[in-house]
């Protein structure tokens, strides 16, 4: 097992199909161009002239590069970071060179010197943006490592582990077969939690993790814990951040089921609607037990990780309605295929 202290997220290219990533690229390239124009002009009239001159040659290149990266993102994802980065540089330079003849139409001289000039700027600009995404990745690293730590701690939390072990002990004499099954679930759960889980995983795997966890809780809570799974078709292959649902299910048990004497239902609804994945989780709401801690930390962490993986395209909302606590998550539907 890797050390928990090894915090940094592995460098990876951003997802070029993500709306947030695309807008960040467009915005930052244009800001760079404006700064460049500002640096090279001495008066306001000259600035406007420079801006339109740069925009004329820059925007077509930028547009084509973004489209090419969008189309080739699945190929780029398979490459190692360094190779992927080189491929992106190659795309930018190739597009710049390919569109260079059109610059003569806009009044450029079309000479070798000007081509070298364009390629040089394209390289610098791409480097700056790659650096920006690298830094952004770094900034989000703590969220990921904290998630792993939290996940580990959550499982090793006395409340869950000791209660479960106690329940297993109660089975050993009377129902050894069931005790075996429970210990198998427990070790599978720990194994999943302890692997280095920073990349997206199939929702099917996350769901089986949740089932193992719920099997163990069922052992101690019995009839009090009821789970209503409503899973739509074609959701198992969807890619989600690891430990997306499990902490939410655990919270639902802790805050929704344990404080009640009467049986409570946890509803899990997951479906695909066109190119979006919708997840909804609901549990009974006990006003009296809101002093129980831990819910907000898990939510904030999941929100941060969703933002890291899907930027503005994912959201997490909570609400209390009709005595039930509901969490809704939407994110892009992606598969590894």
């Amino acid at each position, binding site marked *: 097992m890797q050390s928990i202290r090894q915090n940094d997220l592995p460098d990876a290219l951003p997802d070029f199909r993500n709306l947030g990533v695309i807008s960040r690229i467009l915005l930052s390239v244009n800001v760079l161009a404006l700064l460049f124009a500002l640096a090279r002009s001495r008066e306001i009239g000259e600035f406007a002239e420079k801006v339109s001159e740069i925009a004329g040659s820059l925007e077509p290149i930028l547009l084509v590069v973004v489209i090419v990266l969008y189309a080739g993102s699945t190929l780029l994802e398979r490459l190692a970071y360094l190779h992927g980065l080189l491929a992106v540089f190659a795309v930018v330079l190739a597009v710049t060179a390919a569109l260079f003849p059109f610059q003569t139409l806009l009044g450029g001289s079309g000479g070798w010197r000007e081509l070298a000039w364009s390629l040089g700027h394209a390289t610098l600009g791409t480097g700056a943006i790659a650096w920006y995404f690298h830094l952004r990745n770094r900034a989000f690293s703590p969220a990921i490592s904290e998630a792993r730590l939290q996940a580990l701690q959550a499982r090793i939390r006395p409340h869950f582990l000791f*209660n479960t072990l106690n*329940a297993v002990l109660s089975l050993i004499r009377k129902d050894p077969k069931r005790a075996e099954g429970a210990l198998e679930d427990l070790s599978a759960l720990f194994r999943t939690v302890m692997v280095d889980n920073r990349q997206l995983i199939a929702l099917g795997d996350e769901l089986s993790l949740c089932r193992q966890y719920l099997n163990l809780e069922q052992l101690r809570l019995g009839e009090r814990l009821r789970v209503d799974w409503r899973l739509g078709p074609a959701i198992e292959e969807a890619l989600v951040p690891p430990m997306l649902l499990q902490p939410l299910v655990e919270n639902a048990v802790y805050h929704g089921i344990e404080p009640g004497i009467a049986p409570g239902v946890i509803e899990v609804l997951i479906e695909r609607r066109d190119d979006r994945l919708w997840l909804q989780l609901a549990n009974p709401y006990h006003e009296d037990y809101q002093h129980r801690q831990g819910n907000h930390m898990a939510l904030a962490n999941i929100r941060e990780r969703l933002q890291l993986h899907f930027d503005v395209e994912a959201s997490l909302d909570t609400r209390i309605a009709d005595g039930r606590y509901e969490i809704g998550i939407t994110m892009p539907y992606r598969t590894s295929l």
Partner: protein
Amino acid sequence: MTPLRVVIVDDEEPARNRLLELLEDCRVELPHSIAGEAANGVEGLQIVAAAQAEVVLVDIHMPEMSGIEFARHLQILERPPAVIFVTAHDRYAVEAFEVNAVDYLTKPVRASRLLTALKKAANGARLARGVLESIDPAPRRYFSVAERGRMTLVRVSSRNSATCSCGFIAIVWWRGD
């Protein structure tokens, strides 16, 4: 020595079963009888009052009434039983030990550890009332009145009213509270 009358209060059935097994393991060294078991504090109080239990093994985190509040209500009985907390949470343990609670066992419990606790209880150790306040100062959720082997519990709510005159306290509550 007459067998010690023991009551188990835990909201989780496997946890109660486990305690029954462990008690069975201790029976030779410390004779006792199971006076009853309950899945929550409200039921537990009735059983303890009716059976005149001498020892209660009680979980702390339970729905409706916590183990700590349960122990507080026990103190109004003429002969309150010895309370042994049995819980997976160890965050109350320090306070409990500091104030000499009869005993505080963490799940999973070893039979030998349970035996030690039962012996302490059999020797007449009792939990002082003040101890409970210091472990969990949360407000109680029930009023309790004990008389002739029965305990009456009234849920604390804004619809209740209490008046006090001539040395009597009258509590008025709504049916269903």
